[in-house]
C-alpha cells in the first residue's frame, strides 16, 4: 500500500528511506523523506518500533510493581520519571512526604535533568560535527551519574524514588561528591560555551534552522525546553510548583526565535539553573535526625534472637540499599502503615512487620487507591511529564 508520502511525492524529487536501524538515528525510528537535493520537502515518520506497551503492562501490575517500568520511560533521566509516577499515586492516596525526602527528590530530579540535557546536546553537537563537545558532555554526565549511583545504587535504572518518600538516605560522602560533580559540570559547561557559542560551523547549522513559531509550538502541544525556546514561559516547576521548588531561587530561561540554536541555548542555561537549584537544595536539606548505626546487632543474630523475644537493640544494616535502617525512615519515608514498605529489620524480627510486608507485596494485596482518577505532571527533561492514572 503506498504511504502518504509516496502518494504526495512530486515528479522531480527523490524519496529516501532512513531507519529504522540507521547509524545516525537515535533510537529505532523510521523517517521517509522527500528530498530536493539537500532540502527536505516532506517527511513521514513511523514511530512504533520502540513502543513497549507500557500501558498494557500497567494493567497487570500492582502500583508498587510498576515503579521499575517508569525508569525505562526515559533512561537518561529515570529519577524524574520515578518522581512523576510516584507523586501521581501519592496524590491519589493523599500521602504526605517528609521534607528531607522532598529535598532529596529535588536534588535527584535536577541531577537527572542536567544529565538529560547533556545527553541531548552531546548528540546535537555530534550531529553538527562537534565531536569534542560530545565527549566533554559524556564526561560531565559521568560525574553526575557517579553521585546518583552512590546514592541509588544504579546509574540509570534507579527505582530510587518510592511511594511515600525515597528508598534510602543519602550516602555519607554525598556532599563532597555532589560538590565535585557540580564543579566539574560547571567547567564543562564553560568549555562548551567556548566551543560552540560563536563557532561559525555550529551557528551555520543551527541558527535559523528548524524554526518553530510560538503558535505552532503551542498547537503541537510542545512543552519543556523546546516550547521555552520559542519564548513561551511555561515550566511546570514554576506554574504548578511541586515538592519544594517554590522555596528555591531560580529562573526560567527563554529563547527568542525558536530555532535549533535557541533550543541549545535554553538547555545550556537550564543546566546552570539546575546547578543553582542543586546548590541551594543541598544547603537547605534538613539534617537527618539519626546517625547511621554502625554498632548494632548483626541482621542474622537479630533474626535468631527474635525467635525467642522481641529485639530491643538497634540492628545494623547496610546504610543504603540493603534495607535502609528503620530508624532513619521517618526522615525519608512517610509513616502511613500499609502504604510504604516496612523496614527490613522489622519484617524479619517482628510479626507486625511481617504481616505488613506480606500485605504490601503478596498478590491480591498491595496498594489500593480509592476509586477515581488523577493527573499529575512534573517537569521532565524534555517537557511536561504527566501521568493519568485511573483506579477502579
Amino acid at each position: 500500500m503506498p504511504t502518504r508520502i509516496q502518494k504526495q511525492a512530486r515528479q522531480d524529487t527523490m524519496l529516501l528511506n532512513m531507519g529504522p536501524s540507521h547509524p545516525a538515528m537515535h533510537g529505532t525510528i523510521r523517517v521517509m523523506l522527500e528530498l530536493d537535493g539537500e532540502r527536505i520537502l516532506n517527511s513521514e515518520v513511523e514511530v512504533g518500533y520502540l513502543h513497549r506497551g507500557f500501558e498494557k503492562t500497567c494493567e497487570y501490575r500492582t502500583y508498587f510493581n510498576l515503579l521499575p517500568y517508569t525508569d525505562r520511560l526515559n533512561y537518561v533521566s529515570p529519577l524524574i520519571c520515578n518522581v512523576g509516577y510516584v507523586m501521581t499515586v501519592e496524590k491519589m492516596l493523599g500521602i504526605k512526604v517528609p521534607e528531607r525526602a522532598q529535598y532529596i527528590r529535588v536534588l535527584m530530579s535536577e541531577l537527572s535533568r542536567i544529565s538529560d540535557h547533556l545527553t541531548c546536546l552531546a548528540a546535537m553537537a555530534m550531529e553538527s560535527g562537534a565531536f569534542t563537545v560530545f565527549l566533554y558532555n559524556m564526561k560531565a554526565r559521568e560525574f553526575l551519574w557517579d553521585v546518583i549511583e552512590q546514592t541509588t545504587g544504579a546509574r540509570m535504572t534507579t527505582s530510587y524514588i518510592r511511594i511515600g518518600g525515597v528508598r534510602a538516605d543519602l550516602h555519607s560522602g554525598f556532599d563532597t561528591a555532589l560538590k565535585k560533580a557540580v564543579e566539574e559540570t560547571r567547567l564543562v559547561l564553560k568549555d562548551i560555551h567556548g566551543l560552540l557559542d560563536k563557532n561559525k560551523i555550529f551557528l551555520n547549522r543551527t541558527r535559523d534552522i528548524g524554526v518553530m513559531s510560538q503558535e505552532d509550538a503551542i498547537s503541537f502541544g510542545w512543552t519543556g525546553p523546546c516550547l521555552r525556546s520559542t519564548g513561551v514561559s511555561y515550566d511546570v516547576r514554576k506554574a504548578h510548583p511541586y515538592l519544594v521548588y517554590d522555596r528555591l531561587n531560580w529562573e526560567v530561561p527563554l529563547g527568542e526565535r525558536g530555532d535549533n540554536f535557541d533550543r541549545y541555548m535554553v538547555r545550556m542555561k537550564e543546566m546552570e539553573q539546575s546547578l543553582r537549584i542543586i546548590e541551594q537544595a543541598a544547603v537547605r536539606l534538613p539534617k537527618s535526625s539519626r546517625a547511621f548505626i554502625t554498632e548494632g546487632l548483626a541482621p542474622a543474630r537479630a533474626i535468631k534472637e527474635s525467635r525467642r523475644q522481641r529485639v530491643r537493640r538497634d540492628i545494623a544494616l547496610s546504610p543504603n540499599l540493603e534495607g535502609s535502617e528503620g530508624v532513619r525512615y521517618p526522615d525519608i519515608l512517610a509513616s502511613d502503615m500499609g502504604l510504604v514498605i516496612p523496614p527490613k529489620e522489622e519484617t524479619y524480627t517482628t510479626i507486625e512487620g511481617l504481616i505488613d510486608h506480606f500485605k504490601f507485596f503478596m498478590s491480591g494485596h498491595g496498594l489500593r487507591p480509592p476509586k477515581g482518577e488523577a493527573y499529575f505532571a512534573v517537569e521532565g527533561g524534555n517537557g511536561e511529564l504527566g501521568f493519568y492514572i485511573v483506579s477502579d
Partner: protein
Amino acid sequence: MEEKTILELLREQFPAGLKETSALLGDEVAVIDKEALLQIAAFLKNGPGEFTMLLDLTCVDYPGDESRFEMVYHLFSLTRNRRLRIKARLSEGDLRIASLTSLWKNANWLEREVYDLFGVHFDGHPDLRRLLMYDGFEGHPLRKDYPLRREQPLIPLKE
C-alpha cells in the same frame, strides 16, 4: 475563583451538552456528551478560558459498562495556568467521535494512537491510520479484552 467560573460558564453555555462537573483531588473535570465535543472544545480554546494547549488525549476502556469507552482530554491554559479534563463516553456499538485536528495540531497523532490502540474512529480526521502498530495488525491492543501475551509478529517466528 477562576476554575469555578470556567465550569460555570460551560454550564451556562452548554446546558444540554454538559452532563456533570467535579473537582476530584483538585483536578477540574467536565463530563460531556460526545455530540457536543467539538463545540465545547472550540469554546474552551477560543473562549474566555483560553485553553490553548491540548496536553493529552487518550481513552479508557471500562469493560462491562454500558458505554464502554471513555475519551479523556487534558487541556491547559497558558494564560490562566489552569488544567481541565474533559471526558466523553462512547458505547461499543457507536465508536465515533469528532476529531479535534481542526483545533490542535497534536490531536492528529494522538487520535491516530487512540484509533490504533482502542479502535475509536474520529470523524473529520485527515489521515486516520495506525500510528504504532503496523498495517494488517488485528485487534486493538489496549482494549482490556486483548490478551497480554497475544503475539502477532509481522514476520512469522521460527518454530
